[in-house]
């Protein structure tokens, strides 16, 4: 009897000892479930995209990928948790322009984005657009600029990232535009439809239903490329204004992850974004599935530093 118990105890200890820390070698990765940190509450477009991607990656890697929502901290609680996680390849999280470029100038974040993360890949790009309520007399971007010079015009949007295009536009043309900050994309769009602000600059996801219903008039795409849903609407750049808003969204590991693991995850993302089913679902949300490798993603972000800094300084949001 005692020998049996002893053997059982040893077996249990062995089992726990083996199971608990998890073998961290790149050869056996992934040997257990992977966590994907999303910085917004369930239901936000980024959350839905994450879930779509998670399913595809699950199939490729043969391990469950669980989306963990860590909202709060103005979208930085998630990256903070990611930065503090073990770099064993089992925790990855969403990163974008806010983590790298805007939040560090607006609050005290407990990490240095450029050093704390090992970027995996860019997965999507949000498309932004400038629209006015359909009842408005403004029919084009030129009209908007002209009207703003007579009387200050207001526009609604949610974050500094979105409004880069309009800040640049105002600088180039002398348009008198005031950004009114709203709490959620849908709210910002609703206020424009109701005519409480003169225009709105938000992402395609939030604006599509209203444009389709004829309540909003899309004046221009505020992104480098036109919207797939409205290919006849030009971009601000095509109209002659060097203005556009960035919208890259990507994923990263905490810094220090084995490069082999990172490469394999990058492959998985590449595969996911090449899947037509995944593309279709993401596009249905109004988001553009766009893949960039980790290194390209970081380079893209670095190029965006200057324009975003300008927005922050001029809007008075830069406090650090």
């Amino acid at each position, binding site marked *: 009897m005692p020998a049996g118990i002893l053997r059982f105890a040893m077996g249990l200890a062995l089992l726990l000892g083996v199971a608990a820390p998890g073998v961290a070698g790149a050869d056996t990765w992934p040997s257990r479930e992977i966590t994907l940190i999303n910085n917004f509450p369930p239901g936000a477009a980024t959350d839905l995209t994450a879930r779509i991607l998670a399913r595809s990656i699950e199939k490729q890697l043969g391990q469950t990928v669980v989306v963990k929502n860590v909202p709060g901290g103005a979208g930085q*609680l998630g990256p903070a948790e990611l930065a503090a996680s073990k770099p064993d390849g089992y925790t990855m999280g969403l990163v974008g322009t806010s983590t790298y470029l805007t939040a560090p100038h607006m609050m005290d974040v407990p990490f240095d984005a450029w050093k704390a993360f090992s970027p995996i890949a860019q997965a999507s790009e949000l498309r932004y657009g400038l629209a006015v309520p359909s009842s408005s007399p403004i029919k084009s971007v030129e009209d908007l600029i002209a009207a703003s010079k007579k009387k200050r015009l207001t526009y609604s949007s949610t974050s500094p990232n979105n409004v880069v295009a309009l800040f640049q536009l105002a600088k180039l043309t002398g348009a008198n535009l005031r950004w009114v900050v709203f*709490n959620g994309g*849908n709210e910002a769009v609703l206020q424009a*439809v109701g005519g409480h602000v003169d225009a709105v600059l938000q992402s395609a996801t939030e604006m599509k239903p209203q444009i389709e219903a004829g309540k909003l008039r899309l004046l221009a795409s505020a992104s480098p490329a036109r919207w797939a849903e409205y290919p006849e609407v030009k971009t601000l750049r095509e109209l002659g204004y060097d203005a556009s808003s960035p919208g890259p969204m990507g994923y990263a590991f905490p810094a220090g992850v084995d490069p082999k693991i990172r490469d394999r995850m990058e492959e998985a993302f590449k595969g996911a974004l090449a899947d037509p089913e995944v593309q279709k679902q993401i596009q249905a949300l109004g988001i553009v599935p766009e893949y960039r490798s980790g290194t390209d993603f970081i380079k893209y972000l670095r190029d965006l530093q200057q324009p975003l800094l300008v927005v922050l300084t001029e809007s*008075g949001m830069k406090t650090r």
Partner: protein
Amino acid sequence: MEALLGGFATVFQPMTLLYCFIGVFLGTVVGILPGLGPLTTIAILLPITFKMDVTSAIIMLSGIYYGVAYGGTITSVLMRIPGEASSIVTCLDGYEMARKGRAGAALGIAALGSFFAGTVGVIAVSFLSPPLASAVLAFGPAEYTMVMLAGLALVTYFSSGSRFKALLMVGFGLLLGCIGSDPLAMTPRLTFGVFHLSGGVDLVPLAIGLFGISEVLSMALQKPENLKVLAPPSRLLGFLPSRTEARRSVGPVARGTVLGFLVGLLPGGGAVLSTFLSYAVERKLSRHPEEFGRGAVEGLAGPESANNAATAGAFVPLLCMGIPANAITALLLGAFMIHGVAPGPTILERQPELFWGVVASMYIGNVMLLILNLPLVGLFVKILEVPRAYLAPLILIICMIGVYSTNSAAADVLLAALFGVVGYVLRRYGYDLGLVILSYVLGAIFERSARQALAISDGDLSIFASSPLCIAFAVITAVLLAVALIPRRRLPVPALQPPA
């Protein structure tokens, strides 16, 4: 009308009915569990629906949403723990009714009131959607400010204890709402350097701490025998209210339904606000205001109906305009979009079968929920008979899970625990905690909207009188304040005193 019947035809297929049932059942369960919200559940189930057709998917996910409004009542009445934010007000009188041995009746009235409100709400959605949807558009920042001001004025109807203490609780509720990122400048406010607070204090740890955990602490001090006395004799038809209770509930249910539906329409309004408003209105209109806080059936019937009506109301802007009224409907919107449907003004022309299918499912869902909830009342009430030694730890663990799971943050559990202790102390010395929650919700929206309005008007204060809606709510505020100042008959005993 034929379109609605067509909708019923869509729903009355075995698989669809099954999905509807799964949805409302899950919703009830989620509603019962404190802190666990419909948002997470819907999000988790969403990928599973990818393979389903869009109508069934939406029917199931919607079922979760309005099922929650039913389930949240149960823990509120039986344990004074709000299963959902919209059940916080139920903790006030519903729990007191349970203490008086009327738990069955409380749950029964809540279920029946919820059914009435839910069904009427769906009828309103079916036939009044288009005009109501456009009414929603008229609310800009200035209008919201005035609405919130009226809401804050209603605060005076809540407490009959010391005026200073009531105002103090309102003030702290407003301060709690300020913690976090400034809505306009996005700088952290009142965070004391703690990074976790830069996202603000979430409603869940606040509500569960102030109400649930403080109650567990209070339970510790009760003599064990006293607790057992609370269990009512469980009869098979124990959910039937007495004649008086039924009669007194009719008005509150009707008023709660209308009020809840209207408040639910407004983006940012929602179930929480509707319950508090209904409570305040009922208290003001009641012939027995001193009973509020001690088991007044009106204080249960009104808010319970209001929150179900508000849930139905939230579907109007979603289905008709593609505008979500709150985070949950935003998620449902996302679900629609992933399935390739964009709800909005065109939905009635392009995909009427989807619209009517969802509406029809809501009728059926409400019936299912009534059938689910009523007979089980006897079972639920048995929970009260469980000795405190088993119940208290279970409640505490469930609270911990509920709080932690919201943001996956251990810091939230700390907050909830702190609020629990503070909540106990404040209640002990006669402070009304309901006011904290109410002003916390209202204050955040009030400040944000006021500043947005001033940004639009370039500092010009006249924007707050610029539309008929603004003026209407300003008048309501003035009236409320004036009526509150009319001296009331001095009540012999403050309303929150426990029975001697």
